């Protein structure tokens, strides 16, 4: 009897140890919200980008002003973020109190009930001026009438060109002789193609393109689609991609790739295109507007070419919008401290400081502030960014935006590679998007 009991105890202890090792986490202490004065640590997941360095620097001031709130960042590359964020949401207690949300996730995460409703917080924060965010960026903050994200920075697409080539007298003369018109910044796809091919004939690639499979090629091509007046899904939710506009836009995109892009650049992403511009091998690229300051930085990778780059709206005028948002995990034990931090960082005054230090703007007041122009990158840069942001739309919306972007990009990349025809690609996209939307 005694021996049996002894064995049972050993086995039960072993089992208990195993189970506790698997379970872990939820201790009663973690469920109690901390008292107001108690020291709080906010864990934030961020992407390792230039804007993060500025935020980290500004946060020092916040911590000095609020000694009871400690802010720690977990900075990582984009591709590592999505699954980490998901595991944090699903844990009994959030790993990350504050997360940053990319715009394709701005419908998905609230629909899954992962994010805290910030509507009341925004309303009750004096002087916050939420309407100041540029409309297309602001629209994405709201899901089902609730504000769940606060704009962090924008990455809307623009056209970055080598201004010195467009101003070069010999180039201008040659272009006039060839095309019968002045060499100007392209405003339509036809002009863009013509200018691209002209540069290619004159020893420099016309456009550093980014036809890499996945969301990348879609992010570039959708600007072309807008230029022709097309879209993937219309305002009523119909899939309208298989259209003459899309066909023309894709045919022209492929023609540009074949006749004016650097050779063998089928798997190029934005970093490859940036290197090509920085090393003087390409004359234009459609990319994130915040790359202009990076290229024009005399200590940056463009070296002596720094200062020769300029930013314009994409041909056709309407651009793809990209933006990041701050959001609070619904399962954080520290929602008030988290809002205190976010509302401080994104307040008009601190946002202005962030942009002056080189951050990508999201508030209209910041972009129109002469002091920002002077301390930042000059009036023309901010007015161009404002112009871009006033006329832009994200890659996709809805709970499956991320999947749609990636799958559309597979067909586009295959079409550019010559693996399928333009008609096949567009029909394929139409079927795929319908299939995803039906899920």
């Amino acid at each position, binding site marked *: 009897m005694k021996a049996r009991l002894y064995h049972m105890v050993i086995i039960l202890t072993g089992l208990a140890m195993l189970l506790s090792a698997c379970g872990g986490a939820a201790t009663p202490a973690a469920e109690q919200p901390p008292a107001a004065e108690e020291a709080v640590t906010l864990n934030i997941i961020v992407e390792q980008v230039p804007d993060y360095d500025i935020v980290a620097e500004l946060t020092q001031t916040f911590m000095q002003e609020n000694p009871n709130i400690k802010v720690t960042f977990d900075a990582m590359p984009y591709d590592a973020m999505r699954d980490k964020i998901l595991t944090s949401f699903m844990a009994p207690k959030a790993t990350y109190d504050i997360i940053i949300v990319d715009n394709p996730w701005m419908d998905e995460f609230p629909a899954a009930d992962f994010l805290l409703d910030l509507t009341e917080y925004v309303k009750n924060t004096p002087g916050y001026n939420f309407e100041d965010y540029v409309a297309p960026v602001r629209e994405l903050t709201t899901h089902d009438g609730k504000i769940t994200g606060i704009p962090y920075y924008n990455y809307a697409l623009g056209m970055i060109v080598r201004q010195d080539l467009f101003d070069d007298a010999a180039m201008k003369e040659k272009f006039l002789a060839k095309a019968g018109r002045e060499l100007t910044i392209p405003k339509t796809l036809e002009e863009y193609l013509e200018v691209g091919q002209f540069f290619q004939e004159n020893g420099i690639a016309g456009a550093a393109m980014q036809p890499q499979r996945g969301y990348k090629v879609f992010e570039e091509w959708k600007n072309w689609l807008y230029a022709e007046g097309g879209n993937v899904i219309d305002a009523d939710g119909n899939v309208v991609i298989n259209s003459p506009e899309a066909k023309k836009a894709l045919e022209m995109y492929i023609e540009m790739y074949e006749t004016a892009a650097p050779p063998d650049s089928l*798997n190029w992403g934005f970093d490859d295109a940036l290197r090509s511009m920085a*090393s003087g091998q390409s004359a234009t690229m459609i990319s994130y507007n915040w790359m202009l300051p990076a290229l024009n930085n005399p200590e940056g990778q463009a070296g002596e070419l720094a200062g020769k780059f300029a930013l314009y709206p994409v041909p056709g005028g309407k651009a793809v919008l990209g933006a990041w948002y701050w959001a609070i995990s619904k399962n954080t034990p520290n929602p008030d401290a988290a809002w205190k931090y976010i509302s401080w960082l994104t307040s008009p005054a601190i946002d202005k400081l962030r942009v002056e230090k080189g951050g990508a703007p999201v508030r209209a007041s910041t972009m129109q502030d002469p002091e920002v122009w002077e301390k930042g990158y000059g009036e023309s840069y901010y007015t161009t960014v404002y112009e871009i942001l006033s006329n832009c739309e994200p890659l996709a919306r809805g709970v499956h935006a991320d999947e749609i972007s990636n799958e559309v990009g597979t067909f586009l990349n295959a079409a550019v590679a010559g693996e399928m025809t333009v008609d096949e690609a567009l029909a394929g996209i139409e079927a795929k998007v319908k299939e995803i939307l039906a899920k």
Partner: protein
Amino acid sequence: MSFLRIPFKYRLLMPMGLILLAIMIFPLGYSLAISLQDYELSRIGQERFIGLDNYIRLFSNSSFWTAMGNTITFVVLAVGLELVLGFFLALLLHNKATFMRGFFRSTLLTPMFITPIAVGLMFRFLLNSQLGVIPTALEAIGLRVNWFGPDLALFSIVLIDVWQWTPFMLLLLLAGLESLPEDPFEAARVDGAVGWAMVRHITIPLMRPIILAAVIIRMLDAFKVYEYIYAITRGGPGEATESMQYFIYRTGFIYFRAGEAAAMSFTLIIVITLLVALLFTVLRRESA
């Protein structure tokens, strides 16, 4: 039921059994259960049992079968090349007359100590047509190769894998060669066998079990190809380098559709098991 009535040997096995249950059998069973459900990580609480639907839908999912085809092509080409090269190098290094044998033994092994993601990034730059050393060198002799174009991309990934993992094959085969008995070789020499005849009729038959083990280990590893594709092509151009692991990763961790991803994983396990069984049968029959 008395615990003491369980035979002593099984009681001794219990701790290990419990550990296996917790870390292997339970997760496998759980993922099998997930594969039978409409289970999305972003819709927790709304999962429902759908039987074999996830599996049935895979049959009409052309991307899945493209990925399967690519992965099998990749495994056959990569492991085949690694075996041939590895065996050749192992023979050279086994031969005591080889020049600087000790030096080559250690340096030839270095690629396999590099983390695969770094190898992927290295080759992405080395083969970049604007910045890369390899295209520049080839252009100097008048050759223009689009390494990551639709025709060559998968083969380029195979070459990268061969670069990194031939050393592993070499290591296993060399260890095998050194453990072979001397007598059959001496007997063959007495009978007048030299060079290729010796390798063909003595070395290879004796090495068969070791080759089988090496091929299976490498094969299982090659089925997991992910890093090079992630770092270089992201499965493109089109679906030319889409691999099973990248496809499953995207479905499960980017699109959060755990049910579908689990069904894909189990289908992959079935295919791999069939291939391993086939390999065993073929090699066994040859040795019989």
